[in-house]
């Protein structure tokens, strides 16, 4: 019962925050709303006993990536003039229509499973041990491939920002 109440609170705040992300005029407010949205989604993860996922969501997205996004926004420091006026263009209307269509389709598909009987979860579900076991056995190959991809991205970032000797200055 209490779980259901918390779920609705966090779900509502996730939706409201997501709407604020796209409707806020000031990009800093958008970023703050995105943090709120990510935290709400993390809380829903925690309610679904996926504690590790919840914390990773907070640590990686809310804690690390959003800081970098805020950094960039603050250094750009856009004034209201630079942001331009709020206009309705064909592109925006089409985008809104497409997103609305996708969301409606997803809702229709998902509500079919909404009343499925709840199955009991393994007590180990979502723990670090369990996620680790699955990652290092069943999904070992994809996991290692993703880590290679990330390594390539790290090396790329280092190469791009590195100054050659005698370069500049």
């Amino acid at each position, binding site marked *: 019962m209490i779980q259901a109440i918390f779920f609705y609170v966090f779900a509502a705040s996730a939706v409201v925050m997501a709407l604020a992300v796209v409707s806020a005029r000031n990009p*800093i407010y958008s970023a703050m709303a995105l943090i709120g949205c990510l935290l709400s989604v993390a809380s829903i993860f925690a309610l679904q006993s996926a504690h590790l996922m919840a914390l990773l969501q*907070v*640590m990686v997205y809310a804690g690390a990536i959003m800081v970098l996004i805020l950094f960039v926004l603050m250094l750009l420091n856009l004034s209201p003039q630079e942001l331009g006026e709020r206009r309705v263009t064909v592109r925006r209307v089409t985008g809104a229509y497409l997103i609305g269509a996708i969301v409606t389709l997803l809702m229709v598909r998902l509500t079919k499973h909404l009343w499925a009987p709840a199955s009991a979860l393994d007590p180990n579900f979502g723990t670090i041990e369990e996620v680790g076991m699955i990652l290092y056995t069943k999904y070992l190959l994809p996991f290692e491939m993703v880590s290679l991809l990330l390594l390539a991205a790290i090396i790329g970032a280092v190469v791009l920002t590195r100054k050659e000797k005698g370069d500049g200055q």
Partner: protein
Amino acid sequence: MWIDYLVWTLQNLLFPLVIPVVLLTGVILAVWVERRGAAFIQDRVGPNRVHIFGFRNAGLMQPIADALKLLVKEEFMPEKADRFLFFLAPALSMIPALLTFMVIPFGDVLVLGKYEIPLQVADLNVGVLFIFAIASLGVFGVVLGGWSPDNKYSILGGLRSSAQMISYEISMGLSIIGILIVFESVRLNDIVQMQGDLLFGFLPRWGIVVQPVGFLLFFIAALAETNRIPFDLPEAEAEIVAGYHLEYSSFKFSMFFMAEYVNMMVASGFIVSLFLGGWQIPWAPTEMLVEWKGPLVAAALQVGMFVFKLWFLMWVFVWIRWTLPRFRYDQLMSLGWRVMLPLALANIFVTSIVPFVLGVY
């Protein structure tokens, strides 16, 4: 049964409410330790004049006077400030600081008859990660506090501080992986429980004994994360006036100020739990204490031990602050990325390979 309700209330309502109060009271004590400690190290007397009806108590009334002064001072807001974020920033740095203490155990599970009361607000199976996740949110208060007043000095302070916090968070996270490998758990209470064992029959198996390099790296990173000297560049008053809280006055400033001390207490509690045996009294396991004087005395002794260790570390923080000069910004960054990060990685490598060499597996 009414006693069931009592136990439930204690665990679910009282602890979460009492812990922040204890922490904020601790701030008063911490400020006193800081000011008197500074005076002691610099061979002067320090604040000792404030009194209530002649009751001076070694200057312990001074922080109360400080707090009153901060409360009644004029509230100032720069004209061009972003009002909402200017209000939000101090709260954003205070809330994560108070939240992180919730998973730190301050005593063994108290067994009273059939009731088991964990002396900890939340015994999460991802406790260590919880601290990192919530602590990483504290940076937003600093970033927004620097940006919202529209002042070049405060934005410099905010940017410096966030760059520093992100850099040292990485070494901090990597430096405890050794501990997690040794104790094979991410639950803080398990880690503390296992530190009650003895190595070779006499040496407590504390984190600092099995992971000395990890301890050193973590301690340095904790200094940097809490913006303490020698890493207090975010507020370097000689260069950028006061950094991210430059435009703050009155109670909003005191929120930043208190958050710093609460963060220090959380960092100390975390270090104590990971490396200094938490609530464990060396050579005296819980069963022995319970047999000796009963569960309540045992719990009191353990909580006392935890508090003692925490305040010892707080004193070390103060000691370092009034002993060392400040780093230069490039020194700070090169220490973080070129020294601490490789050392932390080497520590993980050695820690994971030693059991194979010794044939433990």
